[in-house]
């Protein structure tokens, strides 16, 4: 986030540690924080999850309504991803419509889900050209300690996994599970003083020069990437990040989402 302010002392300390390959919270450079997920957290939502990545915490809720499909995709449901960086979650978040930071996170999370073909959108069509399910994925940050990209990504995957299409409520037959085909998992890295670290905390983000998010699917293929912040990456760094991202994806799918 753009307005992180860290004292010069903390900044220097993080720099010194990273030169020795160390991090403030004792993690290795390529290590992610602990993930905790609770699905079905919100009874009023079609699917939901409360998710923690270290001290970063978010709630994801999915709501589905009936509506018209887009003209160019008459037989597929609609997906909308929205991130709310509510001021409750950080002194740096402001009230008001989503700013650039929130929009970037929402679009990167959305891109992962969409391009990773997470959902079989054709199964969210009721009557082609007339009526489809419009699905809102809303991500609320609750406690911000860095890397909302990956925290939100896991939360959305978990919420989708537990979601039911509310068909019966609208006289459209029986409820059925969301048609999830894939679980695209993202991994985010930042560069601090020339060193690449995975899953940055708030303090680490505040001294990072560049950020890279990579989303992968089950077979190890890439489905989305995003470079951010005012620094750069070398080709080798991108390759290295990719390997870690694939491993992280496998781990989240098996240990957090309990798939396959």
């Amino acid at each position: 986030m753009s307005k992180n302010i860290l004292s010069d002392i903390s900044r220097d300390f993080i720099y010194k540690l990273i030169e020795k390959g160390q991090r403030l919270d004792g993690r290795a450079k390529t290590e992610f924080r602990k993930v905790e997920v609770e699905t079905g957290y919100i009874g009023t939502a079609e699917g939901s999850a409360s998710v923690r990545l270290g001290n970063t915490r978010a709630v994801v809720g999915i709501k589905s309504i009936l509506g018209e499909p887009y003209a160019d995709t008459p037989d597929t449901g609609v997906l909308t991803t929205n991130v709310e960086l509510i001021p409750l979650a950080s002194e740096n978040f402001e009230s008001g419509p989503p700013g650039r930071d929130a929009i970037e996170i929402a679009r990167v999370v959305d891109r992962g889900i969409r391009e990773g073909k997470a959902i079989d959108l054709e199964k969210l069509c009721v009557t082609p050209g007339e009526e489809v399910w419009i699905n809102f994925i809303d991500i609320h940050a609750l406690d911000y300690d860095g890397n909302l990209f990956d925290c939100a990504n896991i939360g959305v995957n978990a919420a989708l996994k537990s979601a039911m299409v509310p068909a019966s409520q609208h006289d459209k037959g029986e409820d059925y599970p969301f048609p999830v085909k894939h679980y695209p998992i993202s991994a985010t890295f930042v560069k601090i003083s020339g060193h690449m670290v995975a899953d940055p905390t708030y303090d680490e983000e505040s001294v990072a020069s560049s950020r890279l998010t990579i989303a992968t699917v089950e077979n190890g293929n890439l489905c989305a990437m995003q470079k951010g912040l005012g620094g750069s990456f070398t080709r080798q760094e991108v390759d290295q990040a990719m390997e870690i991202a694939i491993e992280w994806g496998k781990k989240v799918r098996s240990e957090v989402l309990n798939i396959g």
Partner: protein
Amino acid sequence: MGGAKTDIKLIDENGLRFDGRKPDELRPIRIEANVLKRADGSAYLEWGGNKVIAAVYGPRECHPRHMQDPLRAVVQAKYNMASFSVSDRKRPGPDRRSQEISKIISEAFEHVIFTHLFPRTSIDVYMEVLQADAGTRCAALTAASVALADAGIPMRDLVSSCAAGKVQDTIVLDLRKEEDNFGEADMPLGIVPRTGEIVLLQMDGDLTLEEFNKTMSLATEACHKIYELQKDALRRKYGVTDDEDVQESVDAVAESVPDRQEEAEEAFEDEQEES
């Protein structure tokens, strides 16, 4: 009140409500203090089907600047419903209802916070309704009160809140969604338990004077019960064991005020120099 018609029998032949509660019975309530790392103070509350999280930041520099008060802190409470908290998805952002609730909750806290200790600053209270089942403003006020104490904001007392109302001619406590939709009156109340002062009061529906008195008494009693739950939550967090101790810890906060005030003043001066 929704005023809509219904065939639902909200009060049965035994005088019990459709969820089995007695007229004067609260829904289950669970409060936890200090649930967030980033905020200066926080609380999580489950109250029947309501889930609310509250966070406090401040005293801190007041934004927007023109809101600054040279004599006291400004209390800026923001009540918000998550889009997925209700059965029909709510569009993100403040609607007129939530703006009104934010205003009256801000005003309720102005009465208990020692705002004069932190001139020119803002005390920001955020309440996020994650899941809603009627009575969310009382739940939000109750949770925010605990979050303020958790943040160490000096207060004369906590604020405790509960609603009562009328459903199929019976005065009942703590209405659920169906009772709110099809009932005849709802009256959210917020009080300062130690003095009984009323700091939040709304009513809509239809009540005779007599019914009003009964509703008021029911809600007031419940506020006192909720006060105990609020203190419990703080006690559990801070390891103090009885009322006296909570009082003491509140007093300790009050004593530390001069220090906090200095902090606030220094922060203010720094900011002046910067700008």
